[in-house]
């Protein structure tokens, strides 16, 4: 197991102008895995990549590559290559020369260069683009050149900084599949950065959720979704109702004025906890059959389902169901034990998971204001 680890970040701290950006980060990355850093803008994802690539030397902590400390190895001597957030192609070189750049620096023989470039262009579906000018390419094509350029160097680890951020939805989905295929074909480690949770969940072997320079949770996509560690993770990954509760004893939790059975244990008796219920895990039943009851306050049609906001004792729940319930209707909710996930209280308790002021625009606005605060 231990040998399997290609990169190990130990107690990494980075600050800019006295402002801490990464705070005591610990993370190991297994060889050949697809690992994704996920977090809101400004949380330190790019900074972490730059530490791995060698562009930033951490204030403290060790960067271990293949069991060797590489803190002071410059970027050009590291066996990692980066796909930058804004492709960073060389505008004065054509597609061929962009891809051949690393090989020329290594003084590879002419034939090897030609073979590799041709193979890479084939890999990223750009056959026949050798002579094209970089400026004449579309965003998606530039992206592919950037991928080919990095892979031509045969890195052990590829760092991808929001590589699909600038592409439209359809192209993004296609590229997600292609990237995943490329990763499996080449058998190398991908460290992927995104703030799109769906992308993270669908592509990765391991997801690292970050906020404010601190890792919130590391785990497989399923584990992160089903067993978020705190209110931040629960809210950032998918939709969540996060309600204050009290753990009465193992498998028994009180919230919303009702005692529920659950599958969690190991809490102190009467410990205050955060309870997560995913909107799609709630069953709507008649008022008199519900474990809890409430009144519908808004309904939005989302295509696959209706998003219904229900007021239950002053706390607004989000429920996703294929049935339509009109505003003002009284309904009952039924929640199975496996739909309930209990989290310990954290600094994020009470900040997320209430849909009382819910609207998507508002969500984005508040995100942006948090960002601005950090940048200053």
């Amino acid at each position: 197991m231990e040998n399997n680890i290609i990169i190990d970040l130990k107690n990494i701290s980075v600050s800019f102008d006295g402002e801490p950006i990464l705070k005591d980060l610990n993370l190991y990355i297994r060889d050949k895995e697809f690992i994704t850093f996920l977090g809101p803008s400004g949380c330190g994802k790019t900074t972490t990549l730059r530490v791995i690539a060698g562009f930033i030397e951490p204030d403290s902590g060790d960067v271990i590559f293949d069991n060797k400390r590489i803190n002071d190895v410059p970027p050009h001597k590291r066996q990692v290559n980066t796909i930058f957030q804004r492709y960073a192609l060389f505008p004065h070189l054509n597609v061929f020369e962009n891809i051949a750049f690393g090989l020329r620096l290594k003084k590879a023989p002419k034939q090897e260069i030609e073979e590799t470039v041709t193979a890479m262009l084939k890999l990223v579906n750009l056959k026949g683009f050798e002579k094209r000018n970089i400026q004449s390419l579309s965003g998606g094509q530039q992206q592919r050149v950037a991928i080919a350029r990095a892979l031509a160097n045969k890195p052990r680890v590829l760092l991808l900084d929001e590589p699909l951020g600038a592409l439209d939805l359809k192209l993004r989905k296609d590229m997600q599949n292609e990237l995943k295929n490329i990763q499996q074909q080449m058998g190398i480690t991908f460290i992927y950065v995104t703030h799109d949770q769906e992308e993270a969940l669908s592509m990765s072997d391991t997801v690292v959720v970050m906020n404010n320079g601190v890792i919130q949770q590391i785990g497989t996509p399923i584990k992160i979704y089903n067993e978020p560690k705190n209110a931040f993770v629960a809210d950032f990954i998918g939709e969540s109702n996060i309600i204050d509760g009290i753990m009465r004893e193992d498998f028994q939790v009180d919230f919303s004025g009702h005692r529920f059975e659950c599958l969690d244990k190991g809490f102190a008796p009467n410990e205050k906890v955060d309870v997560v219920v995913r909107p799609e895990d709630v069953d709507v039943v008649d008022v008199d059959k519900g474990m809890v009851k409430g009144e519908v306050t808004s309904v939005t049609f989302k295509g696959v389902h209706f998003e219904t906001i229900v007021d239950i004792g002053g706390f607004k729940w989000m429920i996703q169901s294929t049935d339509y319930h009109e505003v003002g209707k009284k309904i009952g909710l039924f929640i199975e034990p496996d739909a309930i996930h209990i989290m310990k209280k954290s600094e994020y308790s009470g900040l997320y998971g209430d849909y009382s002021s819910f609207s998507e625009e508002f969500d984005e606005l508040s995100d942006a204001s948090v960002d601005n605060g950090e940048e200053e």
Partner: protein
Amino acid sequence: MNKKKSFLSNLLAAPHILWSIIFIVVPLFVVVYYAFTNAEGDFTLENIFELKAYIPTFLLSLWYGLLSTLICFIIAYPFAYILSQFSANSQRVMMMLIMLPMWMNLLIRTYSWMLILERNGILNKVLDIFGLASENGFLNSGGAVVLGMVYNYLPYMILPIYTIMSKLDPSVVAAAQDLGGNRFDVLRRVVFPLSLPGVVSGITMVFVPSVSTFYISQKLGGGSFMLIGDAIESQFQSANNFNLGASLSLVLMVLILISMAVMNKFTDSDDTGGAIV
């Protein structure tokens, strides 16, 4: 729609076109007219034939122009490169310092150099302390003329190169490092090619005034050096031979145009743009 727009832009361009006609096209015709006529106003090629005598002067001017351009480039390029990596604040301060002498009149700047370089000048006095003083001072030498050109025109080399360097996308430079380039590789394969437009305009902006200068060579060369600018000036000012002066100017202009065309060949191939001229 399109037509209307082009009419509007023509209208807006009118003052500029008028200005160009009065101050560029008309004088050009006057120069050409004088170059191909004699004192009586008859057509002649004599002025052009007479230029044979000035070939050494042309060559000397070209040589000094090239030399000072080269020296300016050697100083300015590393300077601009290093400056562009400084913090934004120090960059601003340094640029101010570079621009400062440009706000002073050329005559004053050149006179100051005379005071420094002459036999009893500051330089000789300082050197005297070490017993290294030069008997005749440093004025009236080719070196003094080139020094004057470099000093006066160096900012014109630094500015365009620095402007391009400071606009270089740092992630492109990082990409070159990431792909295995050490400092020198990055400079040679990425930074330099991308800064070429700045280099070309810098070279043009230094070479053109250096080749055609007359004041610097008169004051710092002490009249012992006749550059093409001096020759032209004397035809108009003392010899009163407008026709020869005009033909000299015409040939100088053609020479400059040719060198600019050659320079622009370098940047035509890629349209990264950004040249200042």
